[in-house]
């Protein structure tokens, strides 16, 4: 059976989730079509079971959509022949999968002890101010930024480290913040 057909497994008597679940709500657009599908198919060849590809599949979703919605969890479940509840269990166990939409730029500032000693608090404050998000975890009104504090980013020698999406900045101080942000479109 092909993964796309698994959909119907989950609702005996009825059309699969994709067809009916969002009949009224906004139509859910599947992630795994075209290139993303091809990427996943290539991934699957590297694992012994479909289940084993769950974490990378979720990464693809997060990269494509910015976050992992409940609809996407269900889609991943169908594609990998898992149950939606199982996928949600995994998504909610890890902190790095976003369960809510975040800004286009997701800023993670390390505030663990060494960084704290080197002024990480100020860096956080500067990010909150210059991005206009004002609060940790809140997305700026223009949808561009979300800032959070994280535990150790593993660069204590270069405090304060900051990650903007996948980009790593070392030895960030409050006055460098504007410079970092200005390089983002």
């Amino acid at each position, binding site marked *: 059976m092909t993964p796309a057909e698994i959909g*119907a*497994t989950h609702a005996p008597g009825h059309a699969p989730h994709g067809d*009916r679940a969002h009949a009224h709500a906004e139509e859910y657009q599947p992630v795994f079509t075209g290139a993303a599908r091809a990427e996943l198919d290539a991934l699957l060849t590297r694992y012994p079971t479909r289940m084993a590809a769950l974490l990378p599949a979720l990464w693809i979703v997060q990269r494509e959509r910015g976050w992992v919605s409940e609809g996407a969890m269900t889609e991943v479940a169908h594609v990998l022949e898992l149950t939606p509840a199982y996928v949600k269990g995994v998504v909610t166990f890890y902190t790095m999968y976003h369960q809510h939409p975040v800004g286009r730029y997701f800023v993670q500032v390390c505030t663990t002890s060494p960084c704290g000693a080197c002024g990480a608090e100020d860096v956080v404050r500067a990010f909150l101010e210059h991005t206009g998000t004002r609060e940790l975890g809140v997305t700026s009104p223009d949808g561009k930024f979300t800032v959070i504090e994280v535990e150790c980013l593993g660069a204590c020698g270069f405090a304060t480290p900051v990650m903007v999406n996948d980009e790593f900045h070392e030895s960030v101080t409050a006055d460098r913040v504007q410079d970092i942000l200005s390089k983002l479109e």
Partner: protein
Amino acid sequence: MATLTVNGTDVTVRDGATILDAARQIGIDVPTLCWYPTLPIVGNCRVCLVSVEGSAKLLPACATTAADGMKVTTESYAAVENRRGVLGMLLERYPAERIDERGAQNEFERMVKRYGVSVENRSGLPLRAGDDRAGDPMIQHDMSTCILCTRCVRACADIQVVGVLDVAYRGDHAEIIVGADGNPEHAGCTWCGECVRVCPTGAIHDVLPLAKFARDAMQKPATSVRSVCPYCGVGCQLDLEVRGTDVVRVNSPWIEEATPNMGSTCVKGRFGTDFVLHRDRLTTPLIRKGWVKRDGRWRYEGDPADVKRWGRRGGPWRDIEGESNTQKSRPRINPLRRLPTVGGPLGDPRDRVATPADWYEPFREGTWEEAMEIVAQELTRLRDSHGSDSLAVFCSAKCSNEENYVLQRLFRAGIGTNNVDHCTRLCHSSSVSAMQRAMNTSAASGSMREVECESDVIFLLGANTTESHPVFGAALKRAQRRGAKLIVADPRRIELAQRADIHLQMLPGTDVALLNAMLHHVIHLGLHDQAFIRERTHGFDEVARAVEPYTPERAETISGIPAHLIRRAAELYARGPRSSTLWAMGLTQHRTGTDIVASLLNLILATGMIGRWGAAMLPIRGQNNVQGASDVGAIPMVYTDYQPVTDPSIRHRFAQAWGVPDERLSLTPGLKVTQIVTKGSPVRGMYIMGENPIISDPDVAHAEEWFLGLEFLAVHDLFLTETARYADVVLPGASFAEKDGTYVNTERRVQLARKAIPAPGAARGDLEILLELSNRIGLPTPFSTAADVMEEIASVTPSWRGITHARLQETGGLQYPVEHATHPGTAFLFADRFPTADGKATLVPVEFLPPAELPDEEFPFWMNTGRQLYHWHTGTMTRRSQGLDSREPVPTVELSPADAAEMGVRDGDAVRITSRRNSIEIAVRLSPRVARHQVFVPMHYREAAANLLTNPALDPYAHIPEFKVCAVRIEPVAPGRHRALSVERIEPLVPAD
């Protein structure tokens, strides 16, 4: 084998047994929370930790294999202190105050009491939350009492193989979730209630115990009565929780290996028994107005005005059909969203599909004396004036063996006719005729557990098991998970077809071509079992010649299944090594039903896939007692145990047993259902017990005409059914919970159901009614209880010889043949020989013949009919069950999205389906399960009766009609008419915010 000591007592256990098994074997109760029978062992709750000599730390009893020489102490100081500690920690997030207030109410609280644990410090964490399924009509969650034992998660994933539930979030935020979005529907929930069964705290509970409608009863003490589910042929054993005179809840046994379900149920068994308490239950006999008694005789002197108004009988169909959805009073909002309330703003939900008030109008309430007098008088009058064969009886696959036996005895010995039949005719009669011809048997050769645990390949044909027999469907999914290969032949892409290793998606009714081609391929590869063929069968060479022209390519052109799939399936099946073969209505309900089953039997016999443990032949029976009713002689050709009525020596035996002269019993086989209800049948009077032919017969509009012309009709049922509207006398019977009796499931297991509550009002036990009637028409009955009847059945039924109620009570059920009073029953048959004269089976060559009616220009669609998960047959019971009805409230036709797009109809639109015989209006459900140009119409709805459309073409041997194929056309009628109902149903139960 290991011998160990538990609390100073020696115990010997089988290899692989755990310390827990050892302790329970000698009656030592080690407490457990996460452990549950048949669930995978996770060992996460830590309350079963015990001391083992030589081990520095405590060991989990549930997860530690018992070893020789172990010395185990279950209640050592360390073990008890640990247990108290664990329970104490669980209590920190549990509403423990209520334990003191109202005593221990559940498994967990009883354990807390037992160890005298109290809350010493609150952790400061709030009570646990989780998805609550608000508004769900059957199952709800109150996660404040959840202790995260994960029994529900494992029960859903590993027993039912659905996987709705899981644990999400981490640390102290961990909670039980429902699917990804809290909506059980999106997660594939089937509302089986397995989670309710296993929950030790009531965090997951049933909201629709029948208590909803019997609040006073809940104050009374509870007792538990073992019964058998009244729905399908799996024969699940249930425990009815009785308070006062009401069944308030269905539990299921903790576990018993001997029961077919081992405690599992499906949604119908657990939540579908509130029909018993439905206000529509008949409580007094009803007599058609116009019957009057003059000079000691009853006569029909209907007022001409009344006759004009009502007709001589009920109906007509146009009135029934006229009660379309729009005219019926229904809640305007989604019933799932509201808690069921009695007498709320929407009125009593039980009225939604109630018997319309005007159906009662042609009747008056009568006394039992009057009703029985009329029935007895009319039966004897017709017998004496028009001959015995002017009368016929429909027994019931829903009634017990004892009742069916007494009823066929009454008609055979009291009236003198063999016109005795029941709905097996519409069900597995073609299987029976083919199996009788091939190997002189009429039932399954193996057992369900055997298929689940032993078969290497499972070949399932024309059976939507996960919906029609859900508990067995789950067993098949477990079998597949164990490693068994699954081949499914079905025109629809049903759940098991999607899971199958090979899905043979054929055009309806082309099974012979498929099966002949499979055999063709098997023979060509030399995979047939030559020793088996030589030693145990006749006729292989003829069959080999007959299948020679059926190449897989030819079968592909006929059936539409790719030839390479046919080849693969044939090889997989023949290589086994142990292949089981299961089939149901998809094979039998064709005008070539007997041929189709015969071609399947050829394949079974040629590959030797029978008579070995793990290679079972299992026609899956549809009703709780369709097997039993046939076994005790409720079919026209045979007495009990399929002893032919045409044999004078057998007749002599039965005449002796029943105390009548030989001549009273007819040597002519009687008429079958489809021969009785047809133009020109000699039958003038009928007695119908618990059947509803007005919905279940093919082309019912014609059937109705026939019923209108009857001279006398007595109907014996729970409700004023569609059929009862045509009756002269309606006798109120008893439901399954209101009587003792035995039922036979699909694997020949005779099981005993006990009376739990009294029948309502003046309604009487069915056996009591039949015994009185028998006495009144001059056939005395020496019985007073069902147990007495079983004694007589056993005395005239060789394969039931060792069956008594007492033994059934003791053993929890026996699989016949049970040859003597200590015989343990027979789980599988035909190890050495078939029950034929020379012990050999016969292969019968068959040729493919297309269905009687094929799509054409005018009627371009294939129509298929069948069952849905939430409803049952003519809906008499399930449509009066609130939970079930709220899940599936309107009749829907499954239409493929491509066809719908072509016609411009959307989900929920009303369409008119027209066949050559009639037409119905029905809501569309888009479903990729059906192939293009095929539609599936469920059979349950009187307002859109599939059988108005079906083709009454009959199988020449079994006289089973072709329910599964007819040609129809589909026209959109009212866009959006049903959208509100059919689409709303699938909206999230919990609003997204």
